């Protein structure tokens, strides 16, 4: 059954009500996805979480725009975002990302309206997973990262695949330059392949323990990660949008990246 459009069976004789009524599937040439490129990155600390993303939007080799944010405040005022206590970054297919962000935002607002209290980051993380999984067979083509502060006030970071599997992590890079940034983060945040000097020989060498980093260090790591990614990935650049969530609120920092 490789031919489309026409019946192939030659032995069909006469016209009968028992004729097969299902037409052979015609080829669908419309593809509902595109990749808008870019990269995002999140790191959590002991009392803060940072979500960052570049602001370039691409379509193939074209640059659509140099300022299309990928990091959003969830559950806040519509224009200013005031009062939000959760951050979401989406990278991949921007239209799906936008739709996902708006759905989650509506969910968090309805939660506040119905329960009279803000949704916890943990609950929001679980809800985001189900939203993604509901579209398991026509997914939101995005890698999402959710950030906020947990019940104890510690930085909380959740990362997702497009169909909703998720886990809480210390740090995560997503998007086109994820493979460039993630190893750097493994080494600099989780101290992978770092050992305590002089602690032993060979296998006895003791690995350096990972611990939450101070905010200044993390901010610098984010900047370094992106300036490096810009050098090596054509879809990353133009601007860096960083959102820092602490108990005193959300701070947004924009800094330029190379536009080449």
């Amino acid at each position, binding site marked *: 059954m490789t031919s489309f459009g026409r019946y192939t069976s030659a032995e069909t004789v006469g*016209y009968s009500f028992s004729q097969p009524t299902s*037409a052979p599937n015609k080829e669908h040439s419309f593809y*509902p996805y595109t990749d808008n490129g870019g990269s995002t990155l999140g790191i959590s600390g002991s009392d803060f979480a940072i979500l960052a993303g570049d602001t370039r939007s691409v379509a193939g080799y074209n640059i659509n725009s140099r300022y299309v944010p990928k990091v959003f405040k969830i559950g806040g005022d519509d224009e200013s975002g005031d009062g939000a206590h959760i951050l979401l970054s989406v990278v991949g297919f921007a239209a799906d990302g*936008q739709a996902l962000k708006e759905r989650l935002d509506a969910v968090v607002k309805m939660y506040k309206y119905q329960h009279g209290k803000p949704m916890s980051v943990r609950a929001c993380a679980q809800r985001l997973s189900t939203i993604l999984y509901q579209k398991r067979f026509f997914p939101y083509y995005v890698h999402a990262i959710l950030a906020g502060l947990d019940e104890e006030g510690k930085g909380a970071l959740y990362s997702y695949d497009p169909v909703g599997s998720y886990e809480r992590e210390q740090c995560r890079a997503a998007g086109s330059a994820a493979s460039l940034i993630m190893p750097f983060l493994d080494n600099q945040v989780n101290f992978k392949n770092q050992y305590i000097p002089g602690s032993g020989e060979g296998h006895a060498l003791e690995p350096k323990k990972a611990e939450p980093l101070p905010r200044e260090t993390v901010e610098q790591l984010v900047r370094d990660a992106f300036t490096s990614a810009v050098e090596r990935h054509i879809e990353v650049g133009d601007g860096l949008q960083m959102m820092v969530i602490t108990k005193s609120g959300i701070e947004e920092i924009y800094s330029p990246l190379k536009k080449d």
Partner: protein
Amino acid sequence: MEHFPEAWGRPRNDIYGPYDHSYLQTTGPKAHTQSPAVTGTSVIGVKFNGGVAIASDNLASYGSLARFTDVKRLRVFGDSAIVGFGGDVSDMQHIDRLLNSIDIRENYSSDGNLLNAKNLHTYLSKVFYKRRSEFNPLWNHILVAGFDGDGKPFLSSADLLGTTFSAPHLATGFGAHLAIPILRRLFPEDTPLENISKEQAVEALRECIKVLWYRDARSLDKFSIATVTKDGIEVKEDEKVEAQSWAFAETIRGYGAQVN
């Protein structure tokens, strides 16, 4: 006598071969647009001090055939926004009907709350996204020009997938390759809007249309150009590319009939 009534009025099997029943299907996959038919090419737009200018040629092509040469692809919405359409012309007409009915509905209520260009762009991008999610896309790439809620000039794009982005100058189709570099040279992206006059913007668009006429095979030297300012919308729909110079064509080698 043919015993099967379904066969009456149809070509005889013994002469024409078995009848292709796929033409009679009422079940099976519904036919959706899988490729555009009659199409318009580029739309270009640029913001200036106190408004936005937008232009497109008046051609609707049928493949490589210049089928309709007097199609207005800039549509005015209310007295505050212009939508420029690239892509399928029948889908454009469908959206235009949609816009008209919204305009009428909005004007029925006399409360003075009218949709601005930004609201309109949000709405249209939702329409595109919904249709692409139903695998029944509206095959267009549009620019929306006007003002946002704060009264600042607004120029934004939306396409058949629901992807949206905004920039000081935008172009769809071939214009993204040919017009954007010209506009970027004339008005570098960090130019404050105050330094771009309406006359400069319009002149730049005329120049871009000319370049597109030179190099885009699906373009026309008749075009429409419009501006939105606080004073209202100004549309010119029967413009002609002036001061054409085809001297450069002489220097082109490798095409056509020239010998050396």
